[in-house]
């Protein structure tokens, strides 16, 4: 009896050891070589009002060990773009699946490009898919294409492997705005009712086509209402405290050459005030710069000169922000700056009353800009290089 | 497919019985009874659920008992 029990135990142990072999992912077993990895997705609107989904898919033929030179000779691109059309994104996706021999997988999707025709009809309804379907990540960067989104995805850059990677890296560099799917969802649900997306463009030149993040598309109540250019986008970034890398070049008064500064760090604070029913916003910017290039004969170690340069820099920043405020606050009347949130946070009670009238209040808000730039270091050299000591300019 | 599920349920019940039954000694009459009732009851319930998956269940029972309170939290 005891022996039998032991045997039973042995049998059980063996069975338990064998079972895991069949458990490798249950019904959802999927091997990498059965998947079509999507790295970029584009949304367009067809003339019939359907959605055209373009997917940039990693080309399995081009993956693997062979040398890249061999690839380009045989014409095997690292990615291919396929499109499908349907009533919803998922509908289009299933049409797209018919053309792809492997199962589509969005888990590695890095960018979502929204075409102009679609954006004009609103973006909220289409972004739901990216927060509901299990595969896509909220991390994917969202861009606006002033044209067709599929055009952007079809660009084969000669520097990175695919255009999705180029777009993502450009967003990371913060040349323009960086908006992830999560940020977009938050903006859409926010009180201001305004949304901004970075604009991505195709740059045509002799050496081929390259992508460029340039400018910003502004949405209000889910509708595309305007676009601003690169210079204004910089101003917008100053206000929303998203500026990370910046180079500022200016010409000192009474000099014919230039000095370049590199932005080290900057922080922006939005300070709302309500006085006697008058809404006012103070934008306070503190930033630090280093001198990186000095064409003039000015001595960068002279505190008096530095002081003047700082004042000039402050003026520059104020002008930049003024420009974008004129255009977006007064022109488009869209609160992409986060003023609504700032007021709500500081004046919850007054906000409750004014909430519904925000669209009328916002353009009327008086904005004061305070900028405090500090030039911290002169760089590796103090006085101007290549100028004899006694020839240095003092003022 | 339904007969396969019924078969599966019965096989599991039989396996459990084969495993537990010899372990109980002869004096544990009450335990044997409890075991038999629970196992049989589960099998009957499981088979019923295979054929009538939308049978009103414990949740509906509790729902009807606590409905007035539940309304308070609906949002």
């Amino acid at each position: 009896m005891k022996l039998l029990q032991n045997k039973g135990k042995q049998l059980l142990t063996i069975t338990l050891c064998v079972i895991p072999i069949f458990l490798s992912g249950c019904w959802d077993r999927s091997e990498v070589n059965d998947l079509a990895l999507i790295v970029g997705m584009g949304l367009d609107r067809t003339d019939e009002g359907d959605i055209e989904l373009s997917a940039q898919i990693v080309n399995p033929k081009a993956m693997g060990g062979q040398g890249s030179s061999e690839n380009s000779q045989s014409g095997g691109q690292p990615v291919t773009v396929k499109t499908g059309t349907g009533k919803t994104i998922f509908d289009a996706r299933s049409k797209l699946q018919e053309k792809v021999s492997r199962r589509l997988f969005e888990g590695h999707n890095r960018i979502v490009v929204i075409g102009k025709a679609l954006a004009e009809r609103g973006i909220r309804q289409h972004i739901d898919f990216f927060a509901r379907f299990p595969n896509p990540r909220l991390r994917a960067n969202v861009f606006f294409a002033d044209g067709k989104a599929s055009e952007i995805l079809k660009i084969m850059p000669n520097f990175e492997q695919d255009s999705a990677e180029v777009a993502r890296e450009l967003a990371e560099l913060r040349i323009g705005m960086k908006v992830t799917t999560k940020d977009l969802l938050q903006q859409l649900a926010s009180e201001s009712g305004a949304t901004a997306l970075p604009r991505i463009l195709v740059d045509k030149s002799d050496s081929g086509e390259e992508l460029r993040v340039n400018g910003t598309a502004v949405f209000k109540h889910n509708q595309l209402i305007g676009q601003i250019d690169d210079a204004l986008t910089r101003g917008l970034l100053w206000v929303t405290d998203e500026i990370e890398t910046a180079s500022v070049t200016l010409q000192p008064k009474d000099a014919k050459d230039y000095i370049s500064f590199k932005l080290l760090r900057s922080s922006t604070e939005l300070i709302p005030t309500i006085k006697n029913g008058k809404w006012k916003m103070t934008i306070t910017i503190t930033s630090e710069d280093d001198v990186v290039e000095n064409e003039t004969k000015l001595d960068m170690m002279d505190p008096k000169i530095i002081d003047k340069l700082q004042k000039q820099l402050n003026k520059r920043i104020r002008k930049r922000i003024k420009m974008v405020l004129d255009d977006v606050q007064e022109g488009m009347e869209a609160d992409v700056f986060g003023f609504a949130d700032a007021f709500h946070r500081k004046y919850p009670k007054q906000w409750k009353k004014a909430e519904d009238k925000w669209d009328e209040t916002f353009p009327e808000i008086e904005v004061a800009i305070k900028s405090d730039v500090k030039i911290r270091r002169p760089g590796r050299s103090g006085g101007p290089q290549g100028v004899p000591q006694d020839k240095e300019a003092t003022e | 497919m339904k007969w396969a599920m019924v078969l599966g349920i019965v096989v599991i019940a039989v396996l459990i019985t084969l495993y537990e039954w010899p372990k109980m000694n002869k004096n544990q009459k009450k335990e044997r009874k409890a075991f038999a009732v629970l196992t049989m009851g589960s099998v009957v319930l499981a088979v019923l659920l295979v054929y009538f998956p939308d049978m009103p269940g414990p949740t509906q029972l509790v729902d009807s008992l606590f409905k007035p309170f539940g309304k308070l939290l609906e949002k």
Partner: protein
Amino acid sequence: MMERGKISGLQMAILLYPTIIATAILLVPAISGKFAEQDMWLSPIWASLAGFLTVYIALLLHNHYPELTIMQYSGKIIGFIPGKIVGLGLLFYLLHTNGVVLREYGEFVVGNFLPSTPIIVITGSMAFVCALSVRGGLEVMARSAQIFIPVFMTLFLVIILLLFPELRPANIFPVMDDGITPSIKGAIVPSQWFTEFFLIIFMLPYLRTKEKRMTWGMLSVVAVMITLVITNLFSLLLFGDITSKFTYPVMSAARYIDVADFLQHVESIVMAIWVVGVFIKVSVFYYAIVIGTAQWLHLSDYRPIVFPIGLLLIIFSTWVAASLQELSHFLSTVWPFYALVFQLVLPVLLLLVAMMRKKAAENDN
């Protein structure tokens, strides 16, 4: 005595912690967020009051009958037949709730990772593993929890640390915009997670030492509260107003992690936390049902009925709701009151009757 194993106070706390947190960590941020919005991080603090109360009452009841569990002393307090009825109701509640927990687990795994796998395979295998641990007894469960909990907490901390760079502290303002009410409203449903500390009643008789029971029980409540405050705070700082829109905010948060284009796709960590936590949670409930049933039927051993009850458990997990929407509607409307009745009101009533009886007996003397 049918349970021969003994556990320490620390082990008890370690068993209780994941019993509460396992499902709360994924579901509470969305529920609190719905009611409390930017005050959602305050909700677990109010909710924890229910936890302290539950532990305190369980201990007072325990002091009246130090050797018995609620199944046994309910008969002594309110008479044999009413005691049996209360016991049956309680068993039904535990079985039902455990079915819900098992279902939540299955829904999460199927919804996020294995969409085409039948849910019964996932709940069934979990129920089987739990059955083995329950069959091993309280001591075995406590020891496995002791091994798993450090893993659980480390993984949780990893997620929290990786999320740090993504947080936006401004999301927390304005604090208490509409006063204290929204955050209390957001605490009603989570407070029922805290009343699950009621399960302490099934462990108290098997403690090795009688000292520090109160300390360990309360410490466990505090640990759960802190964990939930952190979870809610991080969900809020990351997602802001849209937290309540997600089914599983912590899961969505983990998917958002990306450190230097290198450390990404870490949601399997959340999965690991979830599996470990649910394993202990289901085991503790399961253990309470099994030992409760055995005591209700006056059996000499609880082990023979472990597997049959496991079968029943799997049936309940498929029976509780047709869909995740139905389940979550039930959880956020009816369940708080249902749980409150069995986990807090019932012990309070029992305690009051027991105290009155004691007083009457003293007066007789």
